[in-house]
């Protein structure tokens, strides 16, 4: 391991996911790209964390490696107290299945399944029962009650993203990762979606880590991490859209 480890010790306060010395490189020699360059980060339980930064700064890569979708080149990352680099592919799959929910920017849903089936898919896969009360509550909040039998192709972009959020919430994962979930939506539907996510954190104690470009989206979070060239260059607590925008301008965005 090349990075200097344990500069910041892993805290004992409840941490949902963390990374130490996280490095990810693509390609070799001259073509080498350092997408992540020694990242130390903790995602606290029950918090809404936003990740921001210029395009190509490594936001998506950070999210993917934290979530166990992709492996680090060097360094370590944990979900809860399980260190992912030590786990086999099958075990990581199991961690994703049992502990993590996802919302992507696009293509979130299986085209052949109805909205309801998409929402309960993670539970069906792991053979868990759907908690009907919780299901109804989530559906109610997201306003999807009359769309449950529709196929994804029959839903609007905003509805599709809400179904994706519902899917992430219904399984009650320890942690939800979202990569520009509102990126494809107009400002109103995007705002609604983010408000729902905020509520999930505030009302139900859900932990969420979200990548976004949009300062307004970031203002829904408890804490914003700023990334540049694969490093965390700053962070901000209780952000407002204006403060975030200023910070971004400083970074030359």
């Amino acid at each position, binding site marked *: 391991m090349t990075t200097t480890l344990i500069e910041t010790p892993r805290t004992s306060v409840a941490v949902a996911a963390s990374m130490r010395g996280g490095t990810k490189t693509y390609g070799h020699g001259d073509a080498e790209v350092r997408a992540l360059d020694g990242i130390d980060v903790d995602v606290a339980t029950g918090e809404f964390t936003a990740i921001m930064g210029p395009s190509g700064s490594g936001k998506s890569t950070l999210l993917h490696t934290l979530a166990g*979708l992709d492996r680090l080149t060097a360094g370590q990352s944990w979900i809860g107290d399980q260190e992912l680099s030590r786990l086999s*592919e099958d075990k990581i*799959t*199991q961690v994703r299945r*049992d502990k993590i929910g*996802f919302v992507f920017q696009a293509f979130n849903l*299986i085209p*052949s*399944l109805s909205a309801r089936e998409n929402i309960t898919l993670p539970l069906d*896969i792991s053979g868990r029962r759907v908690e009907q009360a919780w299901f109804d509550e989530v559906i109610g909040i997201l306003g999807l009650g009359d769309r449950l039998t529709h196929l994804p192709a029959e839903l609007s972009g905003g509805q599709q993203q809400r179904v994706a959020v519902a899917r992430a919430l219904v399984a009650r994962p320890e942690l939800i990762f979202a990569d520009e979930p509102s990126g494809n939506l107009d400002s109103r539907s995007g705002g609604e979606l983010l408000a729902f996510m905020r509520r999930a954190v505030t009302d139900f104690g859900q932990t969420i880590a979200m990548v976004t470009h949009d300062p307004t989206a970031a203002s829904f979070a408890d804490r914003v991490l700023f990334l540049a060239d694969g490093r965390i260059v700053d962070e901000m607590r209780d952000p407002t859209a204006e403060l975030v925008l200023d910070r971004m301008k400083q970074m030359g965005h």
Partner: protein
Amino acid sequence: MFRLAVKSVKHNPKRLVLTAVAVALGVALAAATFTLTNALSGGFSKLFDEIYAGTDVIVEEAPDELGDSEDPFAATDAIFAHGDVDDVAAVDGVASAWGGRQVSGTVLAADFEPSNDVMAAGGAPSQIFNWAGDPRVDQATLIEGEGPASDDEIVLDVDAAPRLGYALGDTVSISTDIGVEEFTLVGLVRFGESNSLQGATLAYMTDARSAAINGDDGYDQISVIVEDGADASAVAEAIDEILPEGTRAITGEDKAAEQTAQFDEILQYIDIFAIAFALIALFVGAYIIVNTFRIIVTQRTREFGLLRAIGVSGRQLRTMILLEALVVAVVSATIGIVVGYLGALGLSVVVEALSGEIFGTVTLPIDAVVWGYVLGALVTIVAAIMPAIHASTISPMEALRESATESKKPLRLRNIVGGALTLLGVVAIVVGLYMGIEKPYIPVGAGAMILIIGVTLLAAQVLVPLAYALKAMLTRIFRVDGKLAANNIHREPRRSANTAAALMIGVMLLALVATFTESMKSLVTEQFQGNNADFFVFSAQGAIPEGALEVIEGEDGVAYVTSTGLGTVLLDGEATAVGVIDPDTAELAFDYNNEPDFDQMDGGAFIDPSMVDAGFEVGDELMLEGAEGTATLTVTGRYLNEGDAQVWVDEETGHALLGDYPIVQSMVVLDDGVDPEAAQDQLLDALAVDYPLLVLQSPGEFEQLANQFIDLLLGVISAMLGAALIIALLGVANTLLLSVTERTREIGLLRAVGVRRRSIRRMIRIESMVMAVFGTVLGMILGVGLGAALVRALEDFGFTTITVPWAWLALYTIAAAIAGVVAAWWPAHRAAKMDILEAIAFDG
């Protein structure tokens, strides 16, 4: 998982339609055969039941090692004297015993004209017996007129009389071994309950007349009716005690069961034959399935990535795809079974309309269902395994990539495996063909299969440079359409190779058969080069009557007639085919492939290559045991063609061993200077009086006939391969259709920048044609190669020249190009009619 699999199939059934059709076609072929053979079996089992229904016990020749009672319809030898019938009648429990005798002959139609056409001369077979007057013995009931009371009277079955054009009181002609005999029709009978004779003609004459025609007043069978209350099997056992050696008594019931079982055994071979073709069709179908699932997996990469991201394991993904395959298999096998059954039903109706009732009730046998599902499921699942494994290795990151394309893995592994398999296949074929092992068809068949897979794998590598080589040409001819088509083939070499390979297999088999049959024609031509005979005599009924030969020999201008007889003898306890010739004349008429010539036989025997393989050589002594006697012969020469007869002897030995043996072919040599055409008319006229069913062929006619027969063989096999070829074409269409869907965005883009619909259509057509022609050419190279190897391996059977069927090959290539255009029709249409905006927005 299962629900997800079903949903996925239901969600987009279109992409699986052609796959299902492919599987269904193969399954239908198998199901139809099973249904038909089952119905045939039912029909004949009913026939046998009726033949033996009334008779309690049958006394007959015991089936022996010579195996001449295998054929259920063969006339047997007269082995019972009148005294034997009396002895049987005297046994306790026997109410009556009746000596039965079959007459070999054919009932001629009222408007019969002699024709010198082998195919037409046969007609429906006739079954002619002596009349007992007891329905339990005759198995036939008089329903009109009288039974035959005097020797010039005859009765026919109710269906035959109108079919042949006879009414009561008419004169009926029967062609027999002693000439054409005439009778007066005095009655009509019904066979069994419903006169279901499977198309045969049934006739009865008096006992005396039948003995006169056969030239022997013995009987070939004794039918026994037991007394009321007596147990048939007990009586049969009692009769067995007093019977002469080599005969047996069997109850009617057992006999019917035995005959049905024997017949079913024959039908089993038909089943195996048809299953082989169904397997070929399904093997080709497997290529389509592989391609379809490959493409589907590629198209759904993002979906699978997403599933992986939310926690579906690779194993679960694999299971899901295999489940999808299973769903497809079950649906299409069901369709195939139903279609096969309906096809068989339709065919049986047509056949029965043409040739009378030969099928029993056409029902769907359990065999058809079991085989249908097993074959369908097996092929589909096996074919889906590789794509399924591929899907299971998709990483969750794939869900996040922009576009879904097949990973560009290098082809090296594929080439190595392909090369190794190709080599292994060739080795297995060579070993099978030339090493003289016990069951050569096993290594040859397996080798051919491995070779095909190997070549398929290698084809991906061949296609890339080939498509590139073609690119310049296609670009010059078709401009940008040609360039895009070449690029498309090039882009997915595996997929293109698999598609072309499916066609390759069908064409390979066709080319193989064509090479084989054309070489067979060369063989025929060569054999006639050493021919001196002016005519070949055949009988549509089997053996040529002695009397007919006397008629020919008696005509002016005939120098001599030389005949070939066939029989079976025992050599060291093994049944051995023996051919009988006249050494002095045979070689004059025909230059046999032997060493030395037959005229050096010197009272000994010639042996064929199979005997040499078994360890016999010139100078050895052979102890032959025939029905009439034994003979110890010295091997004086070798007959060099395998497959005609194993041992050749002269006529004197033949008679000593076999008594009267059947003559299967005679050759007529004319005096010098006699005009053959005039002589042919003269001889046919002479034969028309007493032997109107004999056929006299000149060497030219005979050769033509042999070639016709070979063409028929080629035709039948080609038709059976038709299913495989149709499936292969569906494969081309399928691949194009799926890749059109896959390229939706790209095609939309092309249209957006101004490519016309016509150009899009043409691009797809060119792609299809190139793949089709490519597969065909590969198939022809393989097929001709394998055909040549086969011909070489059959050298012992007289093959000397390998003839490449150029005409056929040219035809196949043109047909392939046309088929390519046809197969591209629907995909091209689909691609061209796409809405530009929708295509660009397509999320695939």
